[in-house]
């Protein structure tokens, strides 16, 4: 009987996630593993991307070492089970926050990226708006909100379409590129990367319109509020740092010569705000030093200087026309 009890002991839920991560010595982070700019291994096998940076920021805040993360690629079908079963500590995988997922599967502490569903089409088709895709064949990756958005959007406008769905993005892109479909629809953020993977990226265009709201949020298990707070505030720290003008490049200098109380609080020179999260007072300083602020991460992974060239758009700070707004650290 002893061995049976051992077999079914549930270490995943025996203690809080943060204590578990600290005891283990590294964070386990679920990523998509195949979306350029969000999470993809580079030529040296190093994980790169916005979603990857978010987990590195968490590791930096907890361990003062952004390398203490193990990344596990998750398919869109397996991701929720992986989180629920305790296989991963946090799901940082361009996952859309919806009510049903929030209530059924997990918690979404904070929106890290504002996206919308778009369309990749051949320039030769001369399509300028989604409405012109009436009666077209559209390739999709299955098992995502994409399927629902598309059905709703076409139906409410009295338009029709043919759908072909595939299990992963490689198959979907392959089918689109080989002429099986007229358009490839998924989140716009992914389409920029998908277009780069085609043989002739300049022959394809991403339509301006978005037919849905896709707020990407990291996912955590339900019932662990301290961990949920830590995940939310990791993102807010990156936003607040950008707003306060603290970047990876100037963080050391700012720390030496900080005058404004805002900056002092973010960098842990005043107050002991990190302790409420179960961290050290310099937690946000660690994040900016190792990973950078939100703008640093955006520009490095998907911004104008990268092949993806995703415009900042809705992801600009709130005082620059975007939606990214961090509550004050105080």
């Amino acid at each position, binding site marked *: 009987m002893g061995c049976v009890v051992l077999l079914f002991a549930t270490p995943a839920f025996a203690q809080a996630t943060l204590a578990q991560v600290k005891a283990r010595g590294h964070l386990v982070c679920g990523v998509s593993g195949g979306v350029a700019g969000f999470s993809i291994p580079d030529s040296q096998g190093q994980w790169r991307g916005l979603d990857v940076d978010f987990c590195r920021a968490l590791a930096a805040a907890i361990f003062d070492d952004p390398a203490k993360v193990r990344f596990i690629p998750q398919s869109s079908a397996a991701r929720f089970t992986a989180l*629920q079963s305790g296989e991963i500590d946090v799901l940082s995988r361009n996952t859309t926050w919806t009510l049903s997922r929030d209530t059924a599967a997990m918690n979404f502490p904070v929106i890290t990226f504002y996206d919308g569903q778009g369309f990749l089409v051949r320039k030769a088709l001369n399509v300028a708006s989604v409405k012109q895709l009436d009666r077209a064949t559209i390739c999709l990756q299955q098992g995502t909100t994409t399927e629902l958005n598309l*059905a709703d959007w076409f139906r409410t406008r009295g338009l029709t379409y043919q759908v072909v769905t595939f299990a992963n993005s490689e*198959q979907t892109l392959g089918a689109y590129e080989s002429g099986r479909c007229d358009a490839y629809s998924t989140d716009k953020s992914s389409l920029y990367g998908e277009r780069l993977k085609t043989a002739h990226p300049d022959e394809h265009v991403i339509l301006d319109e978005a037919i849905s709201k896709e707020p990407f949020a990291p996912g955590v298990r*339900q019932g662990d509020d301290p961990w949920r707070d830590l995940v939310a505030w990791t993102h807010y720290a990156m936003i607040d740092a950008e707003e306060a003008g603290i970047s990876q490049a100037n963080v050391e200098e700012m720390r030496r010569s900080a005058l404004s109380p805002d900056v002092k609080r973010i960098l842990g020179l005043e107050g002991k705000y990190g302790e409420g999260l179960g961290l050290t007072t310099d937690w946000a300083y660690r994040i900016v030093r190792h990973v950078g602020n939100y703008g640093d991460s955006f520009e490095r992974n998907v911004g104008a200087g990268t092949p993806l060239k995703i415009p900042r758009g809705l992801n600009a700070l709130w005082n620059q026309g975007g939606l990214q707004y961090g509550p004050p650290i105080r």
Partner: protein
Amino acid sequence: MTEPRRAIGLRAVALQTLLVLAVAVLVYGAATNAAQKLAKQGIVAGFGFLSRNAGFDISQRLIPYAAATSTYLDAFLVGLFNTLLAAALGIVLATLIGFAVGIARLSPNLLARGLASAYVEAIRNVPLLLQLLVWYVAVRVALPPAEAPASLGGAAFVSQRGLVLPRPDFSGAAWLVPLAFLAGIVAVGMVRRRARIAAETGRPPVRVWLPGLVLVLLLPGLAWIGLGLAGHPVALHWPARGPYDVEGGLPILPEFAALVMGLSTYTAAFIAEIVRAGLSSVARGQGEAASALGLSRGQALRLVVIPQALRAIVPPLTSQYLNVTKNSSLAVLIGYPDLVHVFMGTVLNQTNQAVEVVAITMAVYLALSLATAFLMNLYNRRVTMVER
């Protein structure tokens, strides 16, 4: 001598009881653990999700289905019927190709024998997954592009987006045509019965194949023409070019075609080997005796060798049929909306009811396999040697 034997018997019983108990405890522990974890995660267990609205579209539907109104149960049925269609067609084609190739492997004709051997060795030793991708990617891309589909006499079109045939409309009075087809099948059954009775009672033989073919084709044909003469012609929906694709008509999706072709050619290679082994298991003298009686090679095969070979062929053939059904789940890799693709893919992801969805899917494959095995066992009983 009896004392120690009984002791061993008792020990064995005790050990087996312990083992069964241990397994029961293990299963109970796993089940309660899973239930606890799910409850902790706030997942509502149960099958209530099946009546919720599905909201997504499916490329191939054999039953009425609309994203706006259909439920997850409807989506499940669409996937199930797609699986059944691909598996049934795959089994029929694999059997036809397999028997042809298997017989050809024993042909006295060197070319036929060589080709059949090459087919078996090449197909049998390459993973099915790769073959499906070859059919779906390489063969499809060789077809005309969607912008310029090849027209087959203006009645049908073929392109990389599939084959579109004219679609007869069997609503209204036209349902008589499928009814006549069913009547033809029943009539063939009656002819076969007569033929069997004639053979068993030594009356003059009754021909089955030609009259059967005529019945199955002629009855619906007559119904079709009769309806036309009576002023209720069967309507045909002709395919036509739309702004993007060929529309109207009856589309045969390239995903479906690739899956059926891949499944049937792959399984046919195994069936060919089973058929060859079955034929070889029939004593040589049987064939020689048949030709000594003046039967042609075809007659000898059909009347003497194959009926005896079936005894050795049918049991392994059953497991190949089961493989076709199970392998059809590879459809998920080429975008064919079978049960696994629709239910374990989209529905599972949208509802998060992992335990229920996986359990239902496993139960369906189990039921399909058991049903196939049951039917094949019935058939096997008919072909086994009757001891007299």
